[in-house]
């Protein structure tokens, strides 16, 4: 079942087109690696899919809800933006409880899940103010606020940014659990080893257009490279290779 579905999704700022004719499908219980060079339109796409930016054209639904209907969309999604969306003067625990309450999470579930995730991510300073946190600790808090309600679709924009190897491993485990539970994970990252390891399918965006889409192994084979990183470099710098790949299944 497709949780994320876009057709001809487009976003233009004045005369500049950021995303052009994006057709995507992400199934429930899968991880979609959304890759691309800086300025390719990944963040704009994420913002459209999370209701933060209105598409200029095309359709997009998440869990069957039109992304233009932000109020209804919210209950189905979790979002980790590139900058942790946190109230710095609250403690992580206060912030996470507030987010859970606003999302309407059952109080009993909240009391169980929030401490569990805090412990899982080893966020020992959960009762200190967020303003005193390191980048990694803020990122952990940002991730917890996005996953605590076990959304149908989880959007992650550079989620490993600032995380230490242990926390990165925890994140991977949490994502695996969510996938197991049926969550569609939409993962944008420059840490290609993470995408290589987790993604069931990878989409490569360049200049706002989907250059290639396949599972990581097929992508590597088509570009005749051994790693996703090499495939990425090859495809984003070699037009012939990209054209060849567009023709591939």
């Amino acid at each position, binding site marked *: 079942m497709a949780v994320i579905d876009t057709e001809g999704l487009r976003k233009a700022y004045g005369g500049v087109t950021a995303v052009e004719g994006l057709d995507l499908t992400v199934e429930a219980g899968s991880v979609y690696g959304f890759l691309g060079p800086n300025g390719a339109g990944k963040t704009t796409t994420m913002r459209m899919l999370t209701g933060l930016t209105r598409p200029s054209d095309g359709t997009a639904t998440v869990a069957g809800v039109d992304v233009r209907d*932000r109020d209804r969309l919210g209950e189905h999604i979790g979002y980790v933006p590139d900058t942790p969306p946190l109230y710095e003067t609250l403690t992580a625990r206060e912030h996470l409880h507030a987010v859970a309450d606003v999302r309407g999470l059952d109080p009993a579930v909240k009391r169980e899940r929030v401490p569990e995730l805090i412990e899982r991510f080893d966020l020992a300073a959960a009762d200190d103010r967020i303003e005193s946190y390191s980048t990694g600790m803020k990122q952990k808090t940002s991730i917890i606020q996005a996953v605590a309600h076990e959304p149908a679709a989880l959007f992650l924009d550079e989620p490993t940014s600032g995380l230490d190897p242990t926390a990165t491993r925890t994140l991977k485990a949490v994502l695996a659990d969510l996938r197991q539970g049926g969550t569609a994970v939409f993962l944008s990252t420059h840490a290609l080893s993470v995408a290589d390891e987790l993604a069931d399918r990878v989409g490569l965006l360049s200049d706002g257009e989907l250059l290639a889409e396949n599972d990581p192994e097929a992508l590597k084979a088509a570009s005749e490279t051994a790693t996703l990183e090499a495939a990425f470099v090859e495809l984003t710098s070699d037009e012939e290779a990209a054209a060849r790949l567009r023709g591939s299944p």
Partner: protein
Amino acid sequence: MTGPPALVVARVTVVELYRRVSGSTPMAVLFTALPVFFAVQLSGLFGPGAYDYGLQLAAGDAEAVGARVREATVSGLVLLGLMGVLGAGAGNSERKERYVTFLTASTTRAVVLGSVCRQVLVWTVMLWPAAAVAGVAVAAGAGRPVAALSLVGGSLWLFAVATVATVPVGFAARWLLDSAGLPKNARLGLGVGLMGGFYALLFSREQVTAALSGTPVSWAGDLLLVTVPGVDADPLAAAGFLLGTAALMAVALALSVRLAGVVWYGGHADAPEGDAGTAPVDRQETRPRAALTDLVGREAAALVETTWRRTARTPKTLWYVYPGALVGLVMAERLVYAGPFSAAMYPVVLGFSGAVAAGSGFTLNPLGTEGDALPWLLTAGVGSAAVVRAKALAVVLVAVPLVAGGALGVALAVGAPPAVALAALAFALALSVLAPLLSLAVGVHYPPDAEGLLGGSVAVPNKSASAAYTLGMLVVAAPGLGGLGQFALSGSVAPAVLAGGVGLTTLLAVVAGRLGYGHAVARLDDYSVE
């Protein structure tokens, strides 16, 4: 950019400031209008002013003119010094993060000197043109161009002295606060105290000037008058002031560099607040929270409580309440204490200015105040109406008991008749409920839907928003102010006038509040990060 490091820092920061000012119409207007306004006021172009002192000088009354200029110079120097202390205390010249690039590429000394140069320039551009025009006006009136030399040059020197000499005070204050590990709320208290001191000195400047008349500070007058013919300025005293203050600035700069090193590299983190301990208490289950949840529901209660917590822990937000409070103080002083209205006007002033103040904080820029956290709020599926209601509730639940209750209490305390006390209560109640709704309606326009809002903090509130909001409150309050004001002025008022005035204010508040609420919700619904 090449040159001595201090010069490079100064040049870069000045260019950055210039671009910020020239890129913003309100700031450009402020930077232009303020000097022009003061220059017109002081010069005598309209009404009495410096030009008239020049005429007086030409008529041979040099002694009186000299005395007036001396008095103005010393009181000006005192006020400049106080403003300098306030500015330095607020970190005008020493905000480390602004110069972190330079600090890692240059010396502390260069960064301090560069930032002080910038500060001197800002003050000079804002305020000195008025002093310079006044100096020229005196010379023109007297028909003695040479008089302008010391008046213009001397006033420029005073600006430089006041700015530079107060820089170490700011560093010392920071060092003391950091060393003592005071929380931010205590710092705010200190800031309020300083502000109180400023006003105390502002209103007693004549006494302060008189007390300083026999001290070397009064030599500043000789410096400004040294080329003005016939006023008996002492060139030695002028030279003494020049040398003394030059030495003072040198010491201040050296001290600033020393203190900057201690403050910037001392490793003092901002002290945590008292209630941010490490006890893993589930605060959501407290009794007040449970009562709030019963009252407004769990989602709204979470948003209201979060808003309160953030406000209590970000005392800076309360600074935006300050203009409203100042309006109240000025109204009380001008209308009642030194004016024709009776004490019955106090509850009316409290109702109006209290409501204006209450709505001036975090609701005046509801999108901007969310800062980095805005994405989660917008993607939480909570709904724009719920967000607007929660923001308004956070204000109303505090403002109604304080402002409306306060207005009723004061009305009873000053012996207002029951009908007037009830009218004051209704007036304050209507405005207290309207304030956050009007504030939200205006505030959703600031900042505009511009790229860069997400992931960045936004100044709260925008000055234009503040002005529009205050004007709106005034329009709604006007009929009620009229009815209640008539009683406070004459001791009696026709019941129809009282009821009509307050009734009309209430009606306007209901209509404006409804429209404001609807507008804020619609605007938030339409919000898109572009």
